[in-house]
């Protein structure tokens, strides 16, 4: 298979750094960003739209699938739409307010989201990943060590986010890209670990994006699989797309 150009660069870095075991955490992060297209190119990126399909459950329940679109606008805006049985749910964060429309049980108004979900939306708005400019974002990263994870030798990085949440990232020892993460998050007051296997990296306008995420909540087999079919970078996204809509009463009534 043809290897993306960026990955070749990453490999070059590794060679420069000498033996892999001797790399520092900063060198590993630099190699990771270089492999994904270079920190400078990532910093320039202002917005993105990703489209794909989400599958739920294992086995027969894996038959549940739904399309989604997620849009990001720097520095901190995100909007997610997903469709089930023709109905579209929305979750968004405009930099201040996190809100959602969940029409599936009959409620079509936008509502403000719970605090812990808003926090995750806020984290999510940083779609370029925790490693890019992590110091400026207030995250600390430490190299825990190297270990074989599911048969793959990996660098294990522990990221303590500015808000205290902890992400464990496993970077392929050869290509420096993340292939597995373990995120510990507070959900409804309880700690939950989300394990995500990341793959299908492809280049989009010179930047390397994963196009597949298999997620497991609290261990075990993946219960949700996200497949991204397209990624558009630098899309025009007005701020209003991220703002919570006004109450329906305030909207213009349908013509009579």
């Amino acid at each position, binding site marked *: *298979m043809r290897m993306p150009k960026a990955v070749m660069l990453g490999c070059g870095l590794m060679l420069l750094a000498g033996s892999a075991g001797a790399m520092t955490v900063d060198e590993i992060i630099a190699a990771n960003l270089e492999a994904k297209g270079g920190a400078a190119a990532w910093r320039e990126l202002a917005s993105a739209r990703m489209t794909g399909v989400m599958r739920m459950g294992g086995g*027969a329940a894996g038959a*549940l699938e739904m*399309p989604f679109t997620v849009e990001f606008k720097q520095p901190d805006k995100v909007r997610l739409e997903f469709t*089930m049985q*023709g109905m579209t749910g929305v979750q968004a964060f405009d930099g201040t307010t996190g809100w959602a429309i969940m029409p599936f*049980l009959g409620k079509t108004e936008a509502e403000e989201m719970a605090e812990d979900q808003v926090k*995750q939306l806020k984290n999510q708005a940083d779609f370029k990943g925790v490693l890019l400019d992590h110091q400026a974002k207030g995250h600390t990263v430490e190299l825990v060590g190297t270990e074989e994870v599911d048969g793959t030798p990996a660098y294990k990085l522990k990221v303590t986010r500015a808000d205290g949440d902890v992400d464990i990232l496993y970077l*392929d020892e050869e290509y420096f890209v993340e292939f597995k993460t373990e995120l510990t998050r507070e959900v409804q007051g309880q700690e939950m670990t989300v394990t995500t296997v990341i793959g*299908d990296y492809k280049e989009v306008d010179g930047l390397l994006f994963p196009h597949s995420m298999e997620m497991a909540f609290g261990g075990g087999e993946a219960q949700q699989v996200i497949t991204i079919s397209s990624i558009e970078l630098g899309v025009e996204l007005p701020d209003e797309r991220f703002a919570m809509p006004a109450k329906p009463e305030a909207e213009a009534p349908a013509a009579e």
Partner: protein
Amino acid sequence: MTTRKNALLVVALIGAGFGIAGAAEVEIDSATFGGLRARSIGPAVMSGRISAIDAVAGDPLTIWVGAASGGVWKSENAGTTFEPVFDDHAQSIGAIRVDPSNPDTVWVGTGETWVRNSVSIGDGVYRTTDGGDTWQHLGLEATERIAKIEVDPEDPDTVYVCATGRLWSASPERGVYKTTDGGATWELILSIDEDTGCADLDMDPQEPHILYAAMWQFRREPDFFTSGGPGSGLYRTTDGGASWTELGNGLPEGDKGRIAVAVAPSRPAVVYATVEAAETALYRSDDLGASWVRTDDSSNIQMRPFYFSELVVDPTDHRRVYKPGLTLTVSTDGGESFSGLFGASFSMGAVHPDHHALWVNPDNPHQLILGTDGGVSISEDRATTWRFVRSLPVAQFYHVSHDLEWPYNVYGGLQDNGSWKGPSRSPGGISGGDWRVVGDGDGFWAFADPADPSTVYVEYQGGQLSRFDVTTGESKSIKPFTREGEEELRFNWNTPIHLSPTRPGTLYYGSQVLHRSTDRGDSWTTISPDLTTDDPARQRQASSGGLTVDNTTAENNATIYAIGESPLDPQVVWVGTDDGLVQVTRDGGATWRRASDAIPGLAPGSWVSSVTPSPHAAATAFVTIDDHRRGDMAPYIFRTDDHGESWRSIAGPGIDGYVWTVKQDPVNPDLLFAGTELGLYLSLDGGGRWARFTENLPKVAVHDLAIHPTEHDLIIATHGRGIYILDDLTAIRALTPEIMAAKAALLPSRPSPQVLSGGLSWFGSDDEFVGANPDEAASINYWLARRHLFGDLKIEIYDADGDLLTTLPGKKRRGINRVGWPMRLKPPTMPPANALVMAFVGPRVPEGSYTYRLIRGDEVLEGTVELVADPRNPHPREDRLAQQTTALEAYELLGELTFLADGVTELRDQARDRAAKLDGRDRERLAGLGDDLEAVHGTLVVAGEGGLMSGRGELREKLGALYGEITGYDGRPSESQIERLAGFTAEIEAKRAEVAGLTAGLEELNRMLAKRGLAPLAPLSREAWQARQEGAAGTADEGGRVAWGLLLGL
């Protein structure tokens, strides 16, 4: 880019030392098996032996449970649920202690010290500082077992470990160890001799420099147990272990055995001790151990000190003393007298007897947590009533078998927990209620009669054999008796039952001779002489026990332990004994030959743990040798290809732990499975190299294995974690060196049954363990030589016409990958409305063969999967087809409805948009059209606010429900359903006509719009709609969770 140094190499090494006939050595590791996962089916209904408990008083309670051979479990909700937190480490737990100054720091001593014949082994001390997420191994590997750990409440780096030491051999690594640097270094601060270890340790909670240590001289042999000797004694230090004094002054003179010691936390001058001696009794000291008075010698105090030596003083009342033992007794008068806590002195009611651990809540002494041979029970009323914890699947199976039903059932017996039958799959998962007890006592072998699955052959300890009728619950004892003139029959604790693989109704049973019955056990013929050494030195069970005689048949020896009839030649029968002999007959028992003489390097007297005839050649057999009961923990596996004339070792590199069993795969003769004390091991080259199977299977003792002949599952009997199943070995069987040399290759799978849609299950409860079902999906298996990182990895499924049915994301691990295809079309397309309809999944595709393409970057590999009906499916093929056809009709009709509704809403919105830009009559006309379309839409779907409970239903809701009904039943739909579906077809046709009527004047309207400079009304074309649907059929059970997942995942 360099090749990874550990990349899988296929090494063709048929060398002198490792020569395995017919199989080149295949280098494997645990990752070779990739994403194949064992699934735990429990059960937890009877749980298993618990050896240690600690807890943190708080609201809610945090409970730590150490299982005898099932690892460490943590509950953060007062015992509603438990999570295993120690799966990568030794599963035999001796001690757990939570740091009193930090509840996230917990010390675990491995190696149980309730040293019954079947006890497992540990490998030192571990500590977590993050509540159990990660563990550090802090040494003391050679201690094998640890009874207690005490942490200084004033200095968490100062910790004392009570190391009991090796059970089956002498060793210096035993006694009391102390660290003052958090486990970095240890000092042995109390040591007697190589036969005497520490059996109990307690610390004065107010003066942590004062500790009491019970030293115990003990030894187990294959046929004998000794508790007691001159080494035993009770010691005290008052200076943190710098010096020790042996305590006497009221304690019995002469040899002592196992001692338990407990300081009263509320008044530490009061110390209690049970002392095994010629007359075992409870003693109390009121002066920090300086002097002692004998207070009680009731039966529960005296019984089996090696197994029951726990003593707990109520933390708030120095006169209230609990004695967990055969039952739980309590004293309220400072140990002067004891009474039973279960209404009677012996409980057979709410709590399993044989108690090993007890925790009393210091903040609420009415709350007790008790660990027994049968799990954990919790009392809130000071031991008056008990709640059994149903979420601890730590069952200790000795053996496992299966029947040929679909779904098949598994059978097996457990340490002190009878024998059980349970299904390999069940609606909603395999829960406690799915299991049925088929035998009591300690259970071992259990087999369903292949000719009559309602008959189960089952036994309890020491050779008590029964035939159990599952239908009526009747049990008939069918054991053979000693006949006139014969030597008394000797039966092992774990007596082998063997069913003839060739003749239903024929079974074998082993004492020192081999018994055969051809009438389901009603009569027996002896078909061998004494096949053991008959060494009198190994027949000492009547005096076994040491100071306290303990003759329970657990030490019976010089007996047959393993039997195997060749599946290819019923005249060839193998026998293995617990005293080191392998015997074989080639003439159905007329003559016997001692085949063990030819086993190279076999230590005389070693226990033969299994003999397994090969399913491929009558002259081939496998034996495993387990000499751990004499202190040798090494793995021994031998193979013969000439009826035992010669043997060679096949315990190649990679295998660890003493071996219980080995099985040769019935399809691939190079594929071997071995169960050892330290897990499940596989070899792909006939034993040249081994690798542990680790995915969802802890490092637990695997005592037995069975391979299901029609489901091709590996059934794994663990002694400590219940039964696991590795579904569908087909892919592993196909893992040849050629496949493994490829970067990617397809692997086959068994035909996938379309499991019947029925099977109701009710709401569960988090406090009950539920075993996992196999995926109801067709398995697509493939090999990857390394992790896939770049570019697509996906699987496309095609029908017989070559039409693409669906695309699945691929798994990406090194080794074997398994992707499940749910055997359904995409979920139905539904028009937007205001609530979900019970129509979430696509219709099943018909049975048959399907092509799939594994797409990996530019490479495409093509294979097929076979879909078959559920073997129970009672519906004739034409009825199944009728169901599939009708479901597909309803499915497509939902698509039609969606197209219609989408067209209506789009045109409505266009009309309203134009109306807003017009005025006068033109505005009215377009607004009118919008309203008319809105009215039609209102008959297609329930729109607007309202939701799930509104009770409203239009075409979408009604048709969706009908679709759900039809897909939910695998037989012919009812006439009423077919009629209703036809009605909906007509109705949708009528609506289409109605819409066509409303838009008849569209051309004229569009001319008008053109004149006004407005865009024409553009009805939605089928092509445009279709394009929009591509990859976009969506549905789900709960929106919030989906979005949540997306957010965390991206």
